């Protein structure tokens, strides 16, 4: 197609005018909009207890996927459990930020052991950890167990070892922990969860 210089100017002017009018709002735009998709729609909901303090708030943990074999879960969101009697859905700033606590590179995920006098922590297996704890408890109890006091009364005390339990324990866990500690004769026994 042959376009003369003058025709070229005309085409340019018409194009500029048309697009300018469109930019000034003379072209109607459909009034449509969508909200951001609700990100929890089909994620897996898991109930748990906040690990921080002794209040023990209930949390709902949301993870990607539906637990299918080929989709390993990834925790994407945590919020308060509205059905939990302690917090009824609310969470403090620490609890509200649990997601980053879970994904923190500093999070402790396995037992670690530092030998007496050593500087370095070394990773050990749960079996090794339990065996070592049991061994040390047994040795100490055998050595320091007090079956009778000065008057000859049966007391069955073990006062040289204490136990500190966690906060995120259910009533059932608390009951069992109490049974174990007391059946060993342990007196120094405390629990962060004062519930």
């Amino acid at each position: 197609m042959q376009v003369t210089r003058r025709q070229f100017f005309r085409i340019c002017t018409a194009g500029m005018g048309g697009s300018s009018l469109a930019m000034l709002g003379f072209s109607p735009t459909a009034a449509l909009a969508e909200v951001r998709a609700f990100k929890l729609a089909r994620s897996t909901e898991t109930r748990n207890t906040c690990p921080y303090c002794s209040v023990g708030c209930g949390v709902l943990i949301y993870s990607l996927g539906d637990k299918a074999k080929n989709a390993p879960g990834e925790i994407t969101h945590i919020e308060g459990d509205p059905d939990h009697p302690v917090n009824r859905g609310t969470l403090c700033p620490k609890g509200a930020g649990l997601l980053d606590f879970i994904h923190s590179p500093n999070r402790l995920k396995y037992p670690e052991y530092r030998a007496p006098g050593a500087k370095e922590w070394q990773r050990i297996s749960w079996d090794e950890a339990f065996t070592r704890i049991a061994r040390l408890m047994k040795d100490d109890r055998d050595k320091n167990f007090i079956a009778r006091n000065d008057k000859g009364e049966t007391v069955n005390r073990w006062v040289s070892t204490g136990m500190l339990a966690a906060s995120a324990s259910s009533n059932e866990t608390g009951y069992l922990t109490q049974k174990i500690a007391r059946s060993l004769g342990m007196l120094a026994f405390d629990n962060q969860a004062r519930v």
Partner: protein
Amino acid sequence: MALQSLDIKARSATTTQPPVVRDPVHVAKLIDISKCIGCKACQVACMEWNDLRDEVGTTTGTYDNPRDLTDQSWTVMRFSEVEVQPGRLEWLIRKDGCMHCEDPGCLKACPAPGAIVQSVNGIVDFHEEHCIGCGYCITGCPFNIPRISKKDGKVYKCTLCSDRVAVGLEPACIKTCPTGALVFGSKRDMIAHAEGRIADLKERGYANAGLYNPEGVGGTHVMYVLQHADQPELYAGLPKDPHISPMVSLWKGITKPLASFGLGLAVLAGFFHYMTAGPNEVEEDKEHTS
């Protein structure tokens, strides 16, 4: 997600009428400043839900952290130490963020079609995919809320968790608030709740307690219960009578229609000149020699 187009009230720089027959429940967030302990759980919950993480800042001697709203921090606690009665220190903690005005200045100022959308339920939402980053909404906002991102040049602010509200949930900040200073529900219920709180505060010696729901912007869908409603400036400069900047109405109300009219006039004049005087004739030899 359900297409929310039927529930749109207004859309920036759009000339077509959105469907407005349906009238869903008007929602509101009520912030009871007298109950707030400044724990910032709402700030954390907001970032967590909206997948935002602000940079770690530096302390400057106040509890305000972060120091100001950013594209990553859509809500911040503003701490004010005031003595309304001499010798009686009060620590006023105001949760700052978008007020979701009934008459939103940001939306009025916005030139990008669909970048700012107001739902019939009262939520004013930014749709960043349509944002052109001009920053007019920042000028238009009477509360100085929107913040432009250095990452993508688009403007961000509180959405009132429109994604949660759309599926019948409360916003993330409301759910987490441990003291119940934040409540969410229908605007009518929130006003009734506020009345109860104000009566309680008045009984406790706050004679000027009241609701902050400024008429200058048609009322807001985020309201405050203030102990000193007669002096909102005490709360980190909350405007007493907020209005949309006159620059917005000057530009959108006068300058733009006038310029459009002038443009149309020029086109018409050109057309009639062409019809009456005709085109500028050029002689054949001049056309080829030039």
